């Protein structure tokens, strides 16, 4: 059904993404799909690396850990954005094309009032992506 699954991750808040990460790994195992973790970083130094190259290395290490833990084929696709908070949606759309993903599994919060003003990333991806998108709530 699916051969390449994309899982956007925020390495700074992995605890909040547990459900989506586990779900993506389970689906990859079930369908025998490759799992690609996508992360978007700023070009300025941050908590996750002094530069985008260090962040990419961190994401690779995360992917390797996940591959070993779940027995799946997992890789990393790190991206650098000029303004990550506002460029995130565009970055994820681009990643879908770059990777050739046919399913995106991502975490989202339970919808609330602010979603009418600021749609969530998961919501926007689900509405506009050309591939299947699974939004994991909670």
């Amino acid at each position, binding site marked *: 059904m699916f051969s390449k699954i994309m899982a956007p991750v925020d390495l700074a808040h992995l605890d909040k993404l547990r459900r989506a990460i586990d779900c993506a790994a389970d689906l990859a195992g079930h369908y025998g799909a490759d799992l690609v973790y996508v992360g*978007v970083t*700023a*070009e*300025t*130094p*941050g*908590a996750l690396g*002094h*530069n*985008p*190259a*260090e*962040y*990419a*290395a961190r994401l690779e290490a995360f992917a390797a850990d996940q591959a070993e833990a779940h027995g799946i084929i997992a890789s990393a*696709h*790190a*991206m*650098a*954005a*000029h*303004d*990550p*908070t*506002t*460029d995130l949606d*565009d*970055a994820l759309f*681009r*990643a879908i094309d*770059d990777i050739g993903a046919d399913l995106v599994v991502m975490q989202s919060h339970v919808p*609330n*009032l*602010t979603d009418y003003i*600021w749609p969530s990333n998961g919501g926007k991806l689900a509405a506009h992506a050309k591939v299947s998108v699974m939004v994991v709530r909670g």
Partner: protein
Amino acid sequence: MADDTTNQGIPEPEGHSDIIDTDYEIGQDNIETRIGPFGMDIHNPVFLISGLSIVAFVFYALALPEQASAIFGWLRPWLTSTFDWFFLGAANIFVLFCLFLIVSPWGRVRLGGAEATPDYTYVGWFAMLFAAGMGIGLMFFGVLEPVYHMAISEPLGVASPFAEDGSIIAANVAAAKTMGLAATIYHWGLHPWAIYAVVALALALFSFNKGLPLTIRSAFYPILGERVWGWWGHLIDTLAVFATLFGLATSLGFGAQQANAGLTHVFGLPMGISTQVVLITVITAIALVSVLRGLDGGVKVLSEINMGLAALLLLFVLIAGPTLLILTDFLSGLGAYAKELIPLSNPIGRSDTGYAHGWTTFYWAWWISWSPFVGMFIARVSRGRTVREFIICVLIIPSLVCVLWMAVFGGVAIDQVLSSPETSAVKAQVIDSYNPPLSLFAMLEGLPLAKITSVIAIVLVIVFFVTSSDSGSLVIDTITAGGKVDAPVPQRVFWCVFEGAVAIVLLIGGGLGSLQAMVISTGLPFTVVLLVMCWAIWRGLMAERR
């Protein structure tokens, strides 16, 4: 296209890393929490201390307006006249240092590492440099300054072409006109851009190459070492936030008054606080949309639109005005600038104190107090450039553009004043009386299609305020988040709205003047900061592989 460097995959790292080895982890002092549905990620001391001290100063200015006005109204001119030698001398050092870097072998060092590629095209990059740093000033002073220096302020003792009775003294005209242009170009050429370039280079080097957080304190690491993460650093960053926010808020307040004056003059709109409050609200609202759309989708787009409009206005004035004369003015202005540069930048023994204190040191203090904001913004958008390319494009090319701008707008205005002084609106608004906000409109009245060009000018002024406000909000957000550029969006919304709110409160309650004087007073400590940054850049570049 360089703009496509956003959202790209990251290439394999190659070669040696020059990251500074420090135990400090970016974000270790931050508080991450939520207020209702809104996330927050703030640097613990800097956000809280800046926010509280800003509120405290606003209350002080409102509660004790006479005292605040007396203190800061005295402090600012005292500083600029007592320390004139310091400001002028320091600015000269910045220019010489930047020019040296262009020709030195360290010009080959690339910001972001040897493999980095430029984040933006030249067009987008220039647009953002101008819109953040200088756009408003060019609009307001492009006509006013050349005329004023030609006729009234007597830089370097040049004689005015106007006699006491208002008649023209033909023998004085050529020298006064040349000096009017040169003295203006001096204020908008190499020196202010060198001030911005020094700060921007220091921040870019220590952030992109050395891996330190994108905050003002990082440039002090070579001197303070690990102490820079403690109270010394908190003080430096808080001062920067302070100067930026009050600089923006008071600019916004005065700008609203000036835009109101323009609207009243051109359209007969009522002149008053309610119009100005509406203007500030509109500017803040547009800036808000811009910060929500982010750096590429908001700030850059607005900057490019504005530069396009400004170029259009410049071309129109060039074509509709005395074109050949203007082009001659450009060349003679450039020549006069080169000839008078050294006497004008002489820091000691000046007899033309009206010009040297009232304009030059005021400007230098003003720009130095803005430099943390503009410098940080330029740093953020300059990744991938070599030091040589960076300095040429931040120092030389904008200076040339300013020369062209002054030659066109100032040249046309001077021509209007000298060729028909009895009917010149510019003479009426600048020489016979002093109405700075009306000078640009007065010049446009002497050209065809005045109503249309005046509308374009008002739009330009408003959008230049927006681009200062949105880029300023991003900078304050970054400093108060400990150098993180990916703090939750509500934080930048907070700062954008806060700026507008402070401007409105000061406008209504009085206090714009005294707090602007206070901001300019921060130019003195920041001059020391910039001198330290020169030394830090030097140390930093020496340690880089080339």
